[in-house]
């Protein structure tokens, strides 16, 4: 709210599971249009943080503001409808539906809201939905595979389908949970190109959780480092690289 250009702000965001504090008093501001990486060792609270912001989990304390509006404790579908989308770490797709049906699902929601009483209308006449879906399938280069059942896609294509679904929700802010995990070097390269491209073309704000430092230094504008649920650094890649706290807590053994 204080800065005109911030799109997401968390204020004292905290999540406790019993005695464990997974996310501890996190104040994080994401600027509109930037690519922000969140890094941290396993168990640092990265995924929990994303789940708190996207509505899968409710915070114990603190609040989340998106585009000036308080979205704390809203349902996931409400948060998505406001423009926050997420691509899952493991491809979360609809296995027995075609690629096209997968992407159209997301486009349906984006174009027509979270619920409609239209059970007698014909979905093959929803040209707006079809157009959005086609655009996203072409963007991730799955257009030629649109009639294939999602479960029959190779692994890398499933991950790209996952991204297409997230994009078809027409978000302003996209969370990507390790988009290149398990990919071959070629697939990783192609996916990073894709992320850069959609970021540029759609003016998206991207928050990226990633382990691959090479990718992070290539595309991130800023990096937030989480350790044991707390933010220990939040700066540009160069600054983070030189930060002694980060080196000690997290990057000690990593070749940069």
């Amino acid at each position: 709210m204080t800065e005109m250009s911030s799109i997401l702000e968390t204020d004292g965001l905290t999540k406790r599971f019993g005695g464990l504090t997974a996310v501890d008093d996190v104040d994080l501001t994401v600027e509109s249009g930037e690519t922000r990486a969140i890094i941290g060792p396993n168990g640092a609270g990265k995924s929990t943080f994303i789940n708190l912001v996207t509505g899968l989990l409710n915070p114990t304390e603190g609040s989340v503001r998106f585009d000036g509006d308080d979205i704390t404790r809203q349902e996931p579908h409400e948060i998505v409808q406001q423009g926050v989308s997420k691509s899952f770490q493991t491809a979360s797709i609809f296995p027995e539906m075609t690629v096209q049906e997968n992407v159209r699902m997301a486009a349906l929601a984006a174009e027509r809201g979270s619920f409609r009483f239209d059970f007698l209308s014909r979905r093959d006449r929803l040209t707006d939905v079809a157009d959005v879906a086609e655009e996203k399938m072409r963007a991730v280069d799955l257009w030629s595979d649109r009639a294939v059942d999602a479960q029959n896609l190779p692994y890398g294509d499933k991950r790209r389908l996952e991204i297409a679904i997230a994009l078809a929700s027409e978000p302003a802010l996209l969370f990507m949970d390790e988009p290149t995990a398990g990919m071959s070097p070629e697939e990783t390269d192609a996916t990073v190109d894709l992320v850069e491209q959609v970021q540029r073309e759609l003016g998206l704000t991207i928050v990226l959780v990633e382990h691959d430092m090479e990718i992070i230094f290539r595309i991130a504008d800023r990096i937030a480092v989480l350790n044991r649920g707390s933010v220990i650094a939040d700066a540009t890649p160069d600054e983070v690289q030189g930060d002694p706290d980060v080196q000690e807590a997290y990057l000690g053994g990593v070749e940069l």
Partner: protein
Amino acid sequence: MSDDTETDGGTTVDVTPEEENLVDRLVAAKDGERFVAVAAFVGVFAMPFLLIDVLGVFDTLIGLSLGGFVGLPTLILSFGIVAVGYNILLGYTGLLSFGHAALFGSAAYAAGIFSNNVVASPLLAVVAGIVVATLLSWPIGFLSIRRSGVYFAVLTLTFGQMLYFYAFGPGSWLTNGDDGYTPFDVAGGPDLFGSLAMDASITTLFRDVTGLTLTLTDGLDMTVGYMLAALVSVLAIVVAHRIIKSPYGLILKAIGQNEQRVAFVGLNVFRYKLMAFILSGVFAGAGGALYALSKAGLTVHPNATLYWVVSGDFVIITAVGGVGSLAGPLIGAVVFEYIRLVVQGITVPGTEFQIGSLWRLLLGVVFVVVVTLFPDGIYGGLSSLGDRLVERFGAATDDRRPVEEVEETGGDD
């Protein structure tokens, strides 16, 4: 609802003439609304002839009559409609309800009570049944859908049993309890539009309207009541087809496959699940009311309508016929009712042994065999056989499938 002249527009495939092939065109038309309506119409009106074997075809060929009786087709349709709706819930949304007997039974009682106390109109009784089942499915669905899996199933079962015990005991003033309720207990029997007796035959109707006498063998004749049931069924099938081809068809299927992801594309999963439950309630209502109509002058009993075993029967009908398809549940209803009502009365040739109450054992064997051999039910088995035939005789290749999909979206503008 089905008066859509552009019906084929959505599925017509824009192919060059040399690619056209009768088999392909049939495959392309198969999903069209007009095709579904015509097939349903032919099916429901042909069924009595096939089952009752009036022409003695099976008798001549295999020396065995199918042994159907006049009331059987109506019962098949009433259970079939319920299963068509139930499939939207189980086959698409993946929700296993054990409470649909509550909706079916309430509609049967509502139709009967309405006809005896308000107006003895079969058509309005069907409407009354649908309204009551729909209104009842809302709170049952609302309270049950908050829980998933086994808890959902048990909650629906609980609501169903609550209604059953109410109808059996405390509610006897309304339902006549264990003695059974007589729907359409009106002098001279119920009439359609005030002048057509439900048990009047179509030959009588023909004579009354035209003054000419038409002679048919008994079995070829149909009652006005069956025609009403048949037309309601055709309408129900067309509406179910519409639902499957609407955004709901896709969204409900997606919920069945990956519920969390549906929420994360921005859809309200709870409301869509509730709608699936209510829509299936509408069909259960139509089926229940038709069931009451078929029992005109006889009795409707809680054990045959509201009891949880009836809910299980809907599951079996849908699963045997084939979940996730429109025709499957109808096929399941034919098989189920045939075993329940006809095979039950068969005496094993050469012995004095009658199948009798062993029909459930037999049904169980059929269920196990079908589900083991064809995980997608009888219809699933038939359609995979059909796919193989199309592959063999059709010109369609895999390359063309995407083209179809594209045309499906762009065909109308």
